[in-house]
């Protein structure tokens, strides 16, 4: 399936505010992350976490069509 992934901070600077990636129909967070990393080419970017529908998700969590998926680079709020 095609999946739109939101990007922020240095990732957004490098690749734009979102990218569309192809992942298996039965995909996991890990699949999505690998697909986005492949897009990043040789760029040095900080390791992100992944959020699915506004919650942090584990690498083995499923991702389904229609989920809101985002890469979360190291946060620095407060």
């Amino acid at each position, binding site marked *: 399936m095609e999946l739109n992934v939101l990007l*922020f*901070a240095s990732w957004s600077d490098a690749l734009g505010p979102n990218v569309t990636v192809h992942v298996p129909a039965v995909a996991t967070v890990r699949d999505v992350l690998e697909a986005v*990393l492949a*897009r990043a080419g040789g760029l040095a970017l900080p*390791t992100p976490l992944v959020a699915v529908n506004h919650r942090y998700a584990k690498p083995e969590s499923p991702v389904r069509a229609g989920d809101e998926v*985002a890469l979360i680079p190291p*946060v*620095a*709020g407060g």
Partner: protein
Amino acid sequence: MRTAIVEHVLDPAALLDEVASTDSGASTLFVGTVRRVNEGRDVTGIDYSAYGPMAESEMGMIAAEAEKRFGTSRIVVEHRLGTLTLGEASIIIAVSHPRRAPAIEAQRFLIEEIKKRVPVWKREHYADGTREWVEPTAGVVAGGAA
């Protein structure tokens, strides 16, 4: 209990009033401000940005955890986004509680969890004209190597 991502100047007195109650013996306020020096570099300002809906949701969950843990719903958090100058407040956490110890402990819990979990980013502006994302816990992935 109220948490919000806002784009206006924060008002400590208003947030303190909001949590105040005659059932409280103590109120605490935590104010995070833009500091002139960070890791030896001269800072002139900071851009704060967020993944808005998730930041709102995560702040709400953290406040709900604090309520359960410390036994007060008198918690207000406002996090500001946008370009802030030196000394301006980026976050205010207000808590009030019948007793002082949990009023202080809840304050600490809230700021630590927010710093760890809420998807907000800052880009510092330096006196030499450069700007950089602050990535406190960053390892670096070689893109494409995964």
